C-alpha cells in the first residue's frame, strides 16, 4: 500500500507539473459545457436533474480525452527505459499499476469536480434531486476509470504515445458510439432483438445512463468493475509476458 502511495504521488506530481493535465481539464470543461448549453439545451430544458442536459453528453467527450491522460502511463516508461528501474526496485508490478491508475483517476476526479458551477446553478435555479446528480457524477467517474483502465492496457503494449492514444480512443469510441441508441438502431436493423439487447448490455450507455438517472443497479457496478479488473489484469499479464 505504501508503494502504491509513492507511485501515486510521483505520477500526480508529473501530471500537474506538465501542461497535459491542465490542457485536458480545460478542453474537457469547455466541451462539456458547450454540449450542455447547445445540444443539451441547459437553459431551455426546464429540467434541474442534469441527466439529459449535462451527463448524457459526457461519454462523447470522455471517449477521446480520457485516453489522452492515460496514454503516457506505460509508453513513457518503456521509451525512456525507466521500466528497467521500476522492474529492479523491490516493489510489485501491482503496486505500480495501481499507483499509476489511481493518479490518472485523480486527474479526472479534479476535472469532474471542476464542473461544480453547473451543479450550483441548477440548485440556484430549481430544486434538483441532488442524490441523483451525485449518482450521475459517480457514473461519470466510473466511465473515466473504465476508459483509463483500457488505456493502461493499450499503453503496456507499445512505447509510442500516439499509437496508444489512437488505439485506446478507438476502443472507447466503439464502446460509446457502437451502443449509442441512434447508432445502434441504424446498424442493428438486421439483427434479432435479443442480439441488440445483448449489444446494448456490453456498451457504456446502458450502465452509465442508469446511474445518470439516479439508479443504483448491481449489473452496472459489475460491468464497470469487470472491465476495469480485466484491463488491469491484462496490463499485468502483458508487462510480465514482455519480459519473459
Amino acid at each position: 500500500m505504501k508503494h502504491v502511495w509513492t507511485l501515486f504521488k510521483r505520477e500526480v506530481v508529473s501530471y500537474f507539473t506538465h501542461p497535459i493535465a491542465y490542457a485536458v481539464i480545460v478542453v474537457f470543461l469547455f466541451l462539456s459545457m458547450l454540449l450542455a448549453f447547445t445540444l443539451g439545451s441547459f437553459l431551455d430544458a426546464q429540467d434541474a436533474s442534469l441527466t439529459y442536459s449535462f451527463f448524457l453528453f459526457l461519454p462523447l467527450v470522455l471517449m477521446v480525452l480520457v485516453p489522452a491522460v492515460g496514454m503516457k502511463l506505460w509508453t513513457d516508461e518503456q521509451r525512456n527505459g525507466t521500466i528497467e528501474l521500476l522492474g529492479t526496485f523491490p516493489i510489485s508490478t501491482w503496486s505500480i499499476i495501481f499507483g499509476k491508475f489511481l493518479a490518472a483517476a485523480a486527474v479526472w476526479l479534479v476535472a469532474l469536480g471542476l464542473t461544480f458551477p453547473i451543479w450550483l446553478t441548477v440548485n440556484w435555479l430549481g430544486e434538483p434531486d441532488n442524490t441523483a446528480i451525485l449518482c450521475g457524477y459517480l457514473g461519470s467517474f466510473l466511465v473515466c476509470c473504465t476508459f483509463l483502465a483500457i488505456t493502461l492496457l493499450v499503453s503496456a503494449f507499445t512505447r509510442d504515445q500516439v499509437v496508444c492514444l489512437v488505439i485506446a480512443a478507438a476502443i472507447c469510441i466503439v464502446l460509446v458510439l457502437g451502443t449509442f441508441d441512434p447508432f445502434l438502431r441504424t446498424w442493428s436493423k438486421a439483427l434479432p432483438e435479443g442480439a441488440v439487447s445483448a449489444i446494448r448490455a456490453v456498451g457504456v450507455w446502458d450502465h452509465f445512463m442508469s446511474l445518470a438517472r439516479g439508479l443504483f443497479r448491481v449489473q452496472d457496478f459489475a460491468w464497470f468493475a469487470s472491465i476495469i479488473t480485466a484491463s488491469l489484469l491484462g496490463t499485468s499479464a502483458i508487462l510480465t509476458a514482455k519480459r519473459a
Partner: protein
Amino acid sequence: MIEVENLTKQFGSKTAVDHLSFAVKPGEVLGFLGPNGAGKSTTMRMVTGFLPPTHGDARLCGISIVADPAAAKKKIGYLPESAPLYNDMTVGGFLGFCADVRGLAGTAKKEAVERAIETCFLDTVARQGIDTLSKGYRHRTCLAQALLHDPEILILDEPTDGLDPNQKHEVRQLIKRLGQTKAILFSTHILEEVEAACTRALIVDRGKIVADGTPAELIERSGTGSLHDLFRQVTTRDTEAAA
C-alpha cells in the same frame, strides 16, 4: 555476495545467455567484458530481477532472485545501461522518490539523499530538472539512486559509457573505493578500465564465459602482454558471427 548458477536466457530459439556460473565476493570488483550482443546486459537484467531466467538462478547475499525477488532486490543497487531517469523530475525529487521506494523515511531518507548527492558530485544540480542535465550528470544521478540505500551489491552496466575522461576517472575511483566493502559487478567495453578498477574479470562471448581471472592473469594469458589481444583471441567478431 553474488552467486550465479547456470543462468540461461533464451529469446525464442536464440540463446542469449548459456549456463553462466560465477561468483562475486564482498570486496571484489568483477569486470564483465564481451563484444556487443555477448549477453552482458541480459545477464545483469536477470541478476537484478528485471528479466526472469529461462533456467538457473542468482543468489544475492544468499537470497534467490527467482524464489524471493522482493527480498533479493533490496540487496542490490543497479545502474542500467542507458542510465534511464524521469525527465519530468528534479535530481533531488528523483532521489527522494527512489528513497521512498527503498523504504527510507524521515531523517534516514534525508541523510541518504544528501550522501548520494555528495558521493556522486551532484550538489550543483540537485534542484535542477533532469531534462536539462548533461550526459555526465545524468549518469551520475542514476548512479546516485543505485547507492542511496547503501546496498551490499552493486551492478553497474557500462557505468562510464559516454562520460568525458575526467568523469570516467572519477567513476572508476568511486567504483574502486566502493569495491573495498561491496560486491561489484560492472560491464564495460573499455579494457583499460579492467586494469584500473577490477580485482577480477570475466570475458563472455555468445552467452558463455571464455576467460576468467585477475587482470594480471588475463594479460599473461594473452601471450603478448595486451588485454586487447586476448579479447580478440577469445571473442567472435560481428562479421564472423553473421557468417
